């Protein structure tokens, strides 16, 4: 009985500590935290400088990297390729930039905006996808009536009957095998939407880490093996069909490098990736007729790289801003809370025990609580029991949380 009663007590104490480490930091943050919005960084093709918009509560400031402030109209004139709709409306669109005449339809064609968030990559996905007919002979794309799976073979499952389409599956299976595909597939990436100009099917990583491109053309397979650059392991591909037809999508590798997968012979073109962390940063890829602008948004910084259309780096910029951790709010939290526990994470869509440990300042408060408990025990009797010593260790390690827990559920001996 004694043993199970002890186990039961520690279960309750542990539960209180876990719950306290969830609700107290949460409540603290709801009461005191501030929001810090990240600036948006643009590259002005007119002046060849970085400009940014920063929001301060209600107002938006438009600045360049030297701190000069611009009005909204001035800012729009600095970023004509981004603000072209407004400039056209005011009849202020320049005829040419750098001596190159501006053609609106060409500009529209070249404007690209792609975002990859860590939550797009790190989440559970049901491994079923539709392979859209890429030459439907109609102006719009249509969802097929089957979803495919790739396990030890590829199978197309008819949605209405939930049965495998044997003929179609065999056709695609043979095509993959003939191309040297090694089952099972490790990953596959596509853009399973019909709201796009055309369809490029799926890119599939096979069991040997080779990459294959698979499309459905007039209900027949199109399969091509893609030669990967030496030493590349693919983590994620964001496939994005665009009328520009320059690249199929953006490739993120396991060592945080970035590539574009080009239409031109499936070539890989490397993008700047200095400081990129695929698990903690949002990637924003902006393109226009003249430049490519690649930004990595972290919790308190945004790094921006500008390349020309040949992907040669021409400028880079780093913006940092302060967050709660730089102010008293965060520093006090570090003192009070030795750690906090959350079950969801802004960087992925899994439920997990996410412990965030504070920096070492919490030890002071932990020791304080330790001495409080020590003097409480001393008042009761002279010698420590084993369970009192365990309680002291709990309080030393978990501070405030443990202190509440062992006092609420005192040991009855």
């Amino acid at each position, binding site marked *: *009985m004694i*043993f*199970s*009663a002890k*186990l*039961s*007590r520690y*279960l*309750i104490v542990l*539960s*209180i500590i*876990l*719950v306290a480490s*969830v*609700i107290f930091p949460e409540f603290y943050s709801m009461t005191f935290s501030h929001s810090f919005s990240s600036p948006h960084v643009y590259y002005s093709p007119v002046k060849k400088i970085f400009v940014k918009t920063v929001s301060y509560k209600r107002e938006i400031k438009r600045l360049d990297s030297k701190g000069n402030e611009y009005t909204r109209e001035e800012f729009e004139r600095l970023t004509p390729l981004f603000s072209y709709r407004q400039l056209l409306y005011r009849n202020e669109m320049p005829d040419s930039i750098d001596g190159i005449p501006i053609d609106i339809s060409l500009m529209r064609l070249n404007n690209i905006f792609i975002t990859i968030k860590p939550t797009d990559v790190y*989440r*559970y*996905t*049901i*491994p*079923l*996808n*539709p392979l859209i007919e890429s030459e439907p002979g109609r102006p719009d794309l249509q*969802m*097929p*009536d089957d*979803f495919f*799976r790739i396990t030890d073979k590829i199978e197309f*499952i008819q*949605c*209405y009957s*939930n049965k495998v389409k044997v003929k179609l599956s065999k056709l695609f299976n043979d095509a993959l095998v003939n191309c040297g595909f090694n089952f099972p597939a490790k990953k596959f990436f596509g853009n*399973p939407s019909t709201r796009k100009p055309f369809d490029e099917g799926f890119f599939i990583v096979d069991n040997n880490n080779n990459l294959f491109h698979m499309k459905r053309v007039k209900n027949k397979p199109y399969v091509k093996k893609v030669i990967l650059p030496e030493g590349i392991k693919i983590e994620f591909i964001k496939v994005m069909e665009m009328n520009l037809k320059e690249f199929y999508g953006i490739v993120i590798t396991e060592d945080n490098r970035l590539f574009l997968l080009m239409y031109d012979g499936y070539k890989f073109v490397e993008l700047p990736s200095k400081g990129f962390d695929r698990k903690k940063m949002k990637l924003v890829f902006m393109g226009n007729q003249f430049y490519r602008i690649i930004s990595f948004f972290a919790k308190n910084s945004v790094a921006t790289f500008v390349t020309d259309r040949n992907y040669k780096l021409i400028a880079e910029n780093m913006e940092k801003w302060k967050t709660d951790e730089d102010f008293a709010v965060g520093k006090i939290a570090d003192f009070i809370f030795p750690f906090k526990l959350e*079950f*969801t994470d802004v960087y992925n*869509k*899994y*439920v*997990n*025990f996410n412990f965030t440990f504070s920096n070492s300042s919490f030890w002071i408060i932990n020791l304080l609580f330790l001495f409080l408990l020590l003097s409480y025990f001393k008042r009761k009797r002279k010698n420590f029991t084993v369970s009192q010593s365990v309680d002291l260790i709990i309080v030393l390690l978990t501070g405030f949380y443990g202190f509440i827990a062992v006092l*609420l*559920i005192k040991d*009855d001996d």
Partner: protein
Amino acid sequence: MYRALAYKEWLKIRWFTVGAVGIEILALLYIFTNLRAILEFNNVIAVWSSIVYKNYMFFNSVKYLPLAIGITISVAQYLPEVIDKKLKLTLHLPLEESRVLLFLNLFGTMILSVLNLLLVAVLIIGTSMVFPAEIVWAEFITLIPWVLAGYLGYFFTSSILIEPSWQRKTVMAIVGFFMINIYLVDAIYGAYIGIIIPLLIITLLYNYLHMLPGFRFKRGLK
């Protein structure tokens, strides 16, 4: 002796068990008739897409059912015991008291397992008739934490009922509420896949949660 104990427990909870089966059948009937209607009146391909990409859970009306059943069975089993302090008699049987307490909880857990098995099995079998294995598997790993929440609800309710002091009852109720919430986070399909095993172990350990309250109950501590 244990057979007699089991019979006594069964007498207390049998009608509640039957009621739970009834509610499960109603919930399952609702889910599958609703699913039939959705597949009938919508484009089947769109329904598949919503499940795969938009996280449509056609079975989420059972999210809190295992929890509700767990709490009900616990109340049915332990409330009569604590009202007139009848549990004291049980704890004075010529058996080791921690074994008796564990046995009482295991009996309840077993009944819960039968009820949960019924619910999950029917859902899985029904789903696999209209959807492929990938969707069925995603449904299964989504259901597990909800089912485990039922056991946790049972363990916490038992402990709260047996615990003699009101102060500790309150603490356990608050802690139980937040602990159970861990299992019921509003998440996408398969979000729990990384922590199913740890949650299972934690849940099994909580079988011992009511030991200290039981011990205090017997001693009449306040």
